[in-house]
């Protein structure tokens, strides 16, 4: 997963330098990523998903000057994808609650996004030990919430809250809001 952010970012940077091959490779790699992003959020509207994927590719292409080479690529990508989805709903005149970018980054796999900035161990080191342990147990070592609760001798809801709060903090950090 770590390679994905690095690979995408490398293609993006080369594309910005004028390398058309890298740019095409980037756009092709984004197709399955965006498909799963929209499918998960627009259940049952396959036609809309294809439209949104294409609109997002066009936006990635025409608005690539808005990408900051020093910041994670996927955060930029999902911010654009999220905006296209909000605009899509607006055109359809329906109101749908859309998650914050922070929640999207977490939902799309936080390893993915944070790989750009730091490795997981270093990332977790900034959290409280309870939050770090809860995240490590449930998201890296693959324990269930019940198992993690038993191992740490705390309640299940405590584990869930620790994971939730820790993830919020991580997402903020991935986006560069916090040191």
């Amino acid at each position, binding site marked *: 997963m770590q390679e994905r952010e690095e690979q995408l970012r490398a293609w993006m940077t080369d*594309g*910005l*330098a*004028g*390398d*058309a*091959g890298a*740019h*095409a490779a980037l*756009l*092709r790699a984004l*197709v399955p990523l965006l498909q799963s992003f929209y499918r998960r959020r627009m259940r049952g509207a396959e036609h809309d998903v*294809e439209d949104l*994927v*294409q609109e997002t*590719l*066009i*936006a990635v*292409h*025409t*608005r*690539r*000057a*808005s*990408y*900051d*080479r020093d*910041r994670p690529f996927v*955060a*930029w990508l999902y*911010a*654009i994808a*999220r*905006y296209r989805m909000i*605009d899509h709903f607006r055109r359809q005149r329906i109101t749908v609650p859309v998650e914050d*970018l922070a929640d999207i980054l977490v939902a799309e796999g936080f390893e993915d996004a944070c790989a750009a900035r730091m490795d997981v161990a270093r990332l977790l080191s900034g959290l409280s030990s309870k939050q770090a342990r809860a995240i490590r147990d449930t998201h890296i070592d693959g324990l269930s919430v019940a198992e993690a609760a038993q191992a740490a001798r705390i309640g299940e809801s405590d584990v869930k809250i620790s994971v939730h709060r820790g993830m919020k903090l991580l997402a903020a950090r991935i*986006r*560069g*809001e916090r040191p």
Partner: protein
Amino acid sequence: MKTDDLIQSLARDVPAVPRHALGGRIAFGIAGGGVITSALLMAALGIRPDLWIAMHGFAFWMKWTYTASLAIVAIVATMRLARPDALPSRWLWLLAIPVLLLAGIGIGELADTPSRDWLAMWLGQSWKICPWLVLTLAMPIFVGLLWSFRRLAPTRLRAAGAAAGLAAGAIAATIYCLHCPEVSAIFVLTWYSLGIALAAGVGALVGPRILRW
């Protein structure tokens, strides 16, 4: 259109994007609008005849420092909001510094002036038109910034519109200083700020419609 075909046609046109393309584009939009605003100022209002003398005085530099520092903060905010993953701008309180400094100077001036002259000092010669002139002069710069945004990706449209309006207003006020002969701090604090705030308000109002992409 098939997605593969779309990608192929997009990949046919891949110009290099310099590292500071975003800043360059915003600077270009501001410069384009600024030229028109300056031309408007010279044609319709004229540069104050005593500009050279005024530039040796405190009041002129007080005004310029005030409007230029607002402009700098607003431009930085505009550049940030031009990116889709814009971070919340927690440093916008910096805008309060020039306002408070100017208010401090204003209080000092009031203390040195007999209170029967306060009203005249506050209203100056041009309080009725000053905010509207600033707002009018801001429009070309605002349009220039809208052009800049066309290749950028603001996602918080109201905030982006407000920041662009604020930047346009503050830059327009800086240019307007070349015409306006008013000297008191409370005049600038009230009527200049009102004009700049109106420009920001217009930006916030039209942002969600005009900046959509």
